């Protein structure tokens, strides 16, 4: 799904007079939508502008003063937050945490989804239903014992532990989403491959996966953003002190520097960069992934 064009509910205007009448009658809608646009843009724009303003100005005047001609901008906030506040390190940590936490669930979920869709085995639908039922288990239900399990395995407070926790938590949704996609693939195609003597593994690799790129992409993007934006899992499992991702870092900054807006603004935008790039470059998959992810 994309942000598609509106359906033509009305026929096009015939005369200039009709066009003007229509413009005027729609004026309240235009005004209301302009207000909606402002409410949704101003808070973010305000923080964005603040992230480029010198500290002294942030403390004495509001960001909106730039419209009154206070146009001093600086990159100092970003330099400080990336350097002395350790956000560069956290940025790298976020990447280290997110990439395997996306690849592992996509791989495991794709395998399992194929199994549930096209391989025959006893209790298949019951097991699938149990997996779907796990969607309802909130992260909080597993936190405490996972700490124990990871401690016993010697991976508490390591990236490996965090990857495993993210993978486990992503699987029910991923299996659910991909299996429901795989099942819609044409049966004839898969049967034909079987008759030609292709193994399940070859059918999975050469028929199912190439045809499922949109579903795989939606899930991957959803999972990538989920992990990138995660706070709770990182608070509990991330390596301390050196392995914290950006979300926990910003949360820590808020505790110590609650009014240091120059640091907070710059740090927040660093978190937002990657999701925004994804949003603008892969909008279609992005929206699909988020909408499908609404069951999680």
């Amino acid at each position, binding site marked *: 799904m994309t*942000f*598609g064009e509106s*359906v*033509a*509910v009305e026929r096009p205007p015939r005369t200039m007079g009709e066009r003007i009448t229509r413009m005027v009658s*729609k004026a309240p*809608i235009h005004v209301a*939508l302009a207000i*909606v*646009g402002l409410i949704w*843009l101003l*808070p973010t724009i*305000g*923080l964005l502008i*603040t992230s480029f303003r010198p500290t002294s100005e942030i403390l004495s005047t*509001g960001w909106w003063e730039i419209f009154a001609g206070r146009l001093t901008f600086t990159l100092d906030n970003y330099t400080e937050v990336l350097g002395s506040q350790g956000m560069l390190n956290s940025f790298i940590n976020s990447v280290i945490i997110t990439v395997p936490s996306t690849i592992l669930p996509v791989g495991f979920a794709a*395998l399992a989804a194929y199994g*549930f*869709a096209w*391989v*025959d*085995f*006893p209790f298949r*639908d019951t097991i699938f*239903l149990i*997996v*779907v039922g796990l*969607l*309802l*288990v*909130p*992260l*909080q*239900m597993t*936190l*405490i*014992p996972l700490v124990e*399990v990871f401690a016993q395995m010697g991976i508490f407070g390591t990236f490996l532990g965090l990857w495993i926790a993210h993978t*486990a938590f992503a699987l*029910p949704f991923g*299996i*659910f989403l991909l299996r*429901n996609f795989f*099942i819609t693939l044409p*049966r004839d195609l898969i049967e034909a491959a079987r008759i030609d003597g292709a193994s399940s593994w070859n059918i999975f690799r050469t028929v199912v996966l190439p045809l499922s790129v949109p579903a795989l992409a939606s899930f991957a993007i959803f999972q990538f953003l989920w992990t990138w*934006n995660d*706070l709770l899992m990182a608070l509990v499992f991330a390596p301390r002190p050196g392995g914290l991702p950006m979300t926990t870092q910003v*949360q820590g900054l*808020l505790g110590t520097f609650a009014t240091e807006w120059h640091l907070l603004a710059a740090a*927040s935008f660093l*978190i*937002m960069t990657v*999701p925004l790039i*994804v*949003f603008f470059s892969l*909008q279609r998959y992005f929206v699909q992934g*988020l*909408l499908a992810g*609404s*069951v999680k």
Partner: protein
Amino acid sequence: MSTATATPTTSTADVARSRSPKFLSGWSLAALIFIGPAILVLTVFMVYPAIRTIILSFENGLGNYVQLLTADPRFIRFSFPPSGSLWNNILWLLFYTGGCIVIGLIVAVMATRVRYERIVKAIVFLPMAIASTALAVIWRFVYSPDADTGLLNAILGIFSVSPVSWLGNAGFVNTALIIAGIWGSAGFAVVILSAALKGISSEILEAARMDGASEGQIFRRIIVPMLSLPISVIAVTLTINVVKLFDLVYVMTEGGPGNSSNVIAVQMYQQFSARNFDYSATVAVVMLIILIPVMIFNIRRFRSERVVA
């Protein structure tokens, strides 16, 4: 979901079924290779921990549950008005879910009538991409008690209203948080509702207009009833969000001032951090219990429609 069993049985599976004991029959190597890794990870790192959490919550028999539900004013205090984190979740459920649906409906309907629909929807949807942590910083900034920093107090200043500490005042804090939450999620409702609106044929609308129905009547009598399914989808999704709500509240207020804006998931984490593991497990189980009916509704819906978003 009903089509799941329709895969033609392979001959190998049939052969295996007739030979080996009933329970083990039919398990091919392929089945184990495909579902094995996921099932292993889920069993060790999700099912086992969840069962452990349930056991842990009963460490004092029913004691933890009795205390949580009857003697913990931080969880629920039955006064007038009630307070505590469970009560705050109920407030969120009513006003955040309701607010998202109402605003989503209004924006979606208005947006279909203008040419720049795409832009409006993209702008409102954008916060969905942002980490709740960043969203929390954005709104702490808007709500800043300093009129030279906080947008809201600066706007009120134009009307000579003196600055208010929105997040520091127990009377305002929940409203302030819920507004930030609606801002973050309304785009979800807009996108779903706008897709649903496109499914309403223009002939029906034209016919109603021909028959002299007012725009208000068309909205109430035609559009709203036809949107009831997507609205219920949004309501269920946002309800799940509310039960799991953590980041926004934790980063903006940590449940404060005092306990006035606390929610269940934050309270669970606070108990966890304070190393009250069995009590924290009890809060987690209560979250699960609240989620069960919502999820049953959700799974029923998947079954009946076989549609995911």
